[in-house]
């Protein structure tokens, strides 16, 4: 194997062009599926985290004599801190959603993918071996898309949450004082303003996913990296196919991030109409 780049070696890649093409399709498809799964799950997670399901407070309201201590102290004053107060505000589903987000963000996506591929799909849902579009192995592609989706949902959920939090609290106060309900406030006042921060961040996440999807190759998804390996084992060259792969990734991501930056600038200009 030669690790030096030789221009003539690039011609050795030509017969494998179709593999690179297929790899490109796999990568883009994977990123698209990931964003779709991730976005839907992120919204579900965000809604769960924002919901005010507080079973202890509900107990306190239903049986004030027995459980009132979750809401009031002995003098009949509303609690504003302390253990009983925290327990009263505890939202078990919100806690689970937060725990999920933190675990997904604090472990490597490679580990997550192997766990899901070997530990979940191989054991619990065996996917029949068939090819999608004639060249994509479903039994490897699907677990991979699911993992990347589960992973990016955590990041997207944080993007949504911080986007909503970035909207000035005075907006909600004004909306509520006009009589808008919590959901109406979210829909007409907070979300439209938050989207300015959320949309570019989501588009950015798409670029990140395209690059991160390269880990798919480790469970045998024939993406762009799969094509690199095919050239490598046939011709004992590595740098040249890697350069081609890097070029393809760059051509995907660089224009995308430029477009995002442009849209972001346009949106910010909208502020100072």
């Amino acid at each position, binding site marked *: 194997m030669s690790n030096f780049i030789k221009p003539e070696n690039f011609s050795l890649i030509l017969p494998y062009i179709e593999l690179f093409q297929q790899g490109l399709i796999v990568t883009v498809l994977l990123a698209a599926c990931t964003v779709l799964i991730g976005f839907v799950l992120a919204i579900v997670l965000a809604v769960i985290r924002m919901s005010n399901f507080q079973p202890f407070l509900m107990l306190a309201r239903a049986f004030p004599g027995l459980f009132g201590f979750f809401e009031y*102290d002995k003098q009949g*004053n*509303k609690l504003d801190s302390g253990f009983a107060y925290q327990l009263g505000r505890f939202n078990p589903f919100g806690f689970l959603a937060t725990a999920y987000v933190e675990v997904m963000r604090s472990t490597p996506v490679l580990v997550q993918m192997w766990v899901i591929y070997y530990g979940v799909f191989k054991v619990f849902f065996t996917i029949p071996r068939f090819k999608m579009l004639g060249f994509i192995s479903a039994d490897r592609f699907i677990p991979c898309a699911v993992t990347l989706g589960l992973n990016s949902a955590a990041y997207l959920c944080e993007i949504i949450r911080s986007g909503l939090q970035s909207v000035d609290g005075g907006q909600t106060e004004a909306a509520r004082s*006009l009589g*808008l309900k919590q959901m109406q406030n979210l829909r*007409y006042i907070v979300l*439209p303003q938050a989207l300015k921060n959320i949309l570019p961040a989501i588009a950015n996440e798409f670029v990140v996913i395209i690059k991160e999807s390269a880990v798919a190759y480790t469970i045998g998804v024939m993406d762009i990296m799969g094509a690199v390996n095919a050239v490598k084992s046939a011709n004992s060259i590595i740098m040249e196919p890697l350069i081609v792969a890097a070029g393809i990734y760059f051509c995907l991501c660089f224009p995308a991030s430029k477009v995002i930056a442009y849209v972001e600038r346009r949106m910010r200009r909208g502020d100072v109409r």
Partner: protein
Amino acid sequence: MATYGDLIQVRDLKKYYNRGAIKALDGVSVDISKGDVMVVIGPSGSGKSTFLRSLNLLEEPTAGSIVFEGVDITKKRYKDGDGKLVKVDIDQHRQKMGMVFQHFNLFPHMTILDNMTLAPVKVKGMDKKDAEEKALALLDRVGLKDRAGAYPIQLSGGQKQRVAIVRALCMEPEVMLFDEPTSALDPEMVGEVLDVMKELAREGMTMVVVTHEMGFAREVGNRVLFMDGGKLLEEGSPTDIFEHPKHPRLQDFLGKVL
């Protein structure tokens, strides 16, 4: 005018932070009648904003009660005429309490007209055309009809605050709450906002106004409340408060601001 509060009765209202270490409101009781123009004065940090924001539950009181049109809105449920337990719908009550903020809080992503019609259409289910007609008439009254299609960013501070006032009026509230409506304005714009408020008062709107504009308190208010340390220390007519202040803290305060 009725001598008892026929609109809002506030009883022993308390708002504590950190388990009572901070007493933003420490037992305030006051009645508000229809047509009252109640001006709340007091040093910074005395609990004026907390009091005002408690009235429409933007702040959740620690203890005490606020009875608005016969319903204690600090409770989750109340007994209606037939003795049935009914849920207190705070959104319902907030519609009837307009609020004007120091920093305007107009919705920046909507035109002035949309700012004004959103709540009437979405909350009251008013016809969009009717809501717009009404909004334009109100804008006309504050001299801003030609800015209906503008965005808040295009307006001056004084114009924004006038829009904020008529936005609240679009909901036809029973009472208007003002939290230092002129404190964020350049001096030359204070007058135009106070003029709108004066006219409102003349028309008989019930108003609770937190302000440092002593001239307004004297001229327009029929009752003045002096707060300090979360307590209502003195209450009276403008003449009582400004000409014959009794409480030493009020005398001290007036000495500083007048």
